[in-house]
């Protein structure tokens, strides 16, 4: 079953091209702060643009080496034509890389529609009002683009579909955290990632059948050290696999390609734009947002709830906001006597087995 999810992701460009032939429109988005429901309500399929493990060649003449591997890889794929099927993109202000990306992308790669959400970083009421306005602007731009209006009903329907997805993912997240769970952390990563490139209705069906399959099966995670994994995006699932191979088990996460993406549901209310703004503003904060206490509190809660024995932080090199928050996180964990390991990646596991040695040593220490 996990193989289905893996295949989905592996074939994502092929599938997208097929949808395209069927006359569908496709939009790309980079990060979990793009209001996908609005895109979906416009009858456009949103797909998340993620890094790739291919060598970056073309982006070198546009981006300095001190830009994160994720940003460089995304642009590189764009320049190579991998995303030529996109009719548009929607990005949201999260980090400084994402803020600059749409301008550079659209200067070099033909793309008919570019939407940018200048999302506030704060969780205040004034910030909410501002985000509502940003969403309204996006809505009317989308309406102009598709040539018809997007009514509240269709937004509400999209909200429902997306909420369904989130609920299922949360259930699977809990299954993963159980003793002897049949669902590993690396499998779960595949599951989440497939959702970025699969129309949500179809994805929900896949999630449901996975759930029923898992409920009736058992496997052994016994004797493994229970970890929470935290961090920015990374493309290489082998990082998680390696942790599992050397005796760790991933039972909870604070990942961008993980719980941060699906944790919070949209509370339906009379005005769907308001509901959406509420959700995207108050969702589990990524380090791009201010303040950062809540993120730490959630990590501590998860640690407790899932009897986590150690936290592994996997941070993308040059990712300012994650790097800035690392000493604070270390402090919070130390104060709470939670062992902690920090790994800095450039999207991938790397060859030398350095990480492996460090994770092994960490596990030894915890046993």
């Amino acid at each position, binding site marked *: 079953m996990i193989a289905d999810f893996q295949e989905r992701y592996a074939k994502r460009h092929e599938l997208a091209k097929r949808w395209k032939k069927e006359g569908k429109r496709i939009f790309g988005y980079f990060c979990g702060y793009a209001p996908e429901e609005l895109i979906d309500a416009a009858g456009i399929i949103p797909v998340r643009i993620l890094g790739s493990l291919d060598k970056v060649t073309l982006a070198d003449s546009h981006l300095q080496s001190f830009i994160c591997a994720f940003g460089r890889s995304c642009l590189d794929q764009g320049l190579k034509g991998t995303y030529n099927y996109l009719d548009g993109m929607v990005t949201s202000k999260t980090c400084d*890389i994402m803020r600059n990306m749409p301008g550079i992308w659209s200067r070099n790669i033909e793309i008919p529609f570019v939407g940018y959400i200048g999302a506030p970083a704060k969780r205040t009421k004034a910030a909410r009002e501002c985000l509502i306005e940003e969403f309204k602007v996006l809505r009317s731009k989308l309406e102009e683009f598709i040539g018809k209006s997007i009514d509240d009903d269709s937004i509400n329907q999209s909200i429902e579909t997306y909420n369904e997805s989130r609920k299922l993912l949360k259930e699977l997240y809990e299954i993963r955290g159980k003793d002897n769970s049949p669902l590993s952390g690396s499998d779960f990563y595949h599951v989440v990632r497939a959702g970025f490139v699969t129309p949500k209705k179809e994805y929900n069906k896949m999630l449901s059948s996975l759930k029923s399959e898992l409920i009736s099966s058992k496997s052994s995670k016994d004797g493994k050290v229970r970890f929470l994994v935290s961090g920015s995006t990374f493309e290489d699932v082998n990082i998680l696999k390696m942790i599992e191979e050397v005796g760790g088990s991933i039972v909870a996460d604070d990942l961008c390609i993980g719980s941060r993406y699906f944790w919070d549901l949209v509370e339906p209310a009379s005005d769907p734009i308001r509901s959406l703004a509420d959700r995207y503003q108050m969702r589990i904060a990524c380090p791009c947002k201010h303040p950062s206490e809540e993120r730490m509190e959630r990590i501590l809660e998860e640690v407790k709830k899932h009897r986590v024995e150690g936290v592994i932080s996997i941070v993308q090199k040059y990712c*300012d906001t994650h790097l800035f928050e690392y000493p604070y996180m270390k402090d919070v964990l130390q104060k709470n006597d939670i062992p902690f390991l920090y790994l800095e990646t450039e999207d991938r596991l790397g060859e030398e087995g350095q990480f492996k040695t460090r994770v092994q040593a960490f596990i030894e220490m915890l046993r």
Partner: protein
Amino acid sequence: MSDKKPEKKKRLKTAEKLGKLMADYYTESAMVKAQKKPVAWLSSVAPVEVCYTMDVFPIYPENYGTMCAARKLSAEFCAAAEAKGFSTDLCSYALNNLGSIYLNKGPFMGQGLPEPDLLIATEHACLSMAKWWEELSRHFNVPLYIVDAALPVGEDLSPHHINYFAEQLRELMGFVEEHTGNKFDMDKFKEVLGYSDEASKLFLEIGALRKTVPSPISPIEIFTNMFPIVTLAGKKEAVEFYNELYDEISELAKRKEAAVPNEKYRLLWDLFPIWYNLNLFKYIEEKGGVVVADVYATTFGGRVDISRPFEGLAERYVGNPLLSYGVQQKTELYKQMIKEYHVDGVVFHSNRSCRMASMGQYDVKQGIYEDIGIPGAIFESDFVDPRSYSDEQVKDTLDSFFEILESRG
């Protein structure tokens, strides 16, 4: 590192006055604690007018970062921050500042800055700022107010962008009231805004005098003369100073007196100076190049519509091209500046510390060249942390650039 010391003798008459303004400010900063006056630390592009309205003494760690760099202290400070777990790849303004705090050292009489009672930071220059200031708030255990901006990229500002910022400025006044006991007074606020606007206006006009050929003011002079607009915006002294400076520079412009002899190539500079090596400008000047335009300095001179105080002040801060322009807009802005300032070439300082400002430089350079045929050069360094600076590489890049300029005649 550079071989020569900067010239001691100052060309401008107003230099003395500037020196005095700075000395007064720093003397006062050494005494505020004893006087029990509340001290706020401000990040770059934070609304200093709030402090002058609320009778709070403002301190700019970034300013101080440039001084630490100039006095070659930044390497030690950055290393101290790294020892606490901050990555060496982070902004060296931040690392320098945090390190100097951890070590409790600094360029003034060996001491660090007077400790803050309040912290006011923005996050529209970059996201790192918010994170850095959160750490300050934890370290000093003092309240922090982040002024956030939801800026569009590549599009015009809408009223809700202004309103969000203005709303926070109102909140901020309340925040300062709450933590200092000082009361907000609208008349005082308007007076402060009046001075701020006047200083900004003059500062922008001085910048515009660089359109004269030859340029009547050098880049080092422009950068050093930023102190009042950054630190004293809202004070009468800043207005008086810029009035005098304006008179002096416009007189030089009228007489066509060159700030730099042998002005052959007029250059546009993007973006930060290298603070520990301002002599690089001298090197450029030896080659006949003079930086006559930049967006770094002008960024600090936004106008204020005093009839709508909060919205007006918001516009001063969020209307800043440096902060909300995407590559296409920046390219257009530069093309226009190139025309107005009679620029022959563009020098881009790709600053490893500042991804926000460095990302997109290659595209801007290319865009300018494609559209109007003006060449550019990009060199890489860090603006505060000298540890991996390669003078040779930077000069190589500049040398070949001058060859190109020369071949173009």
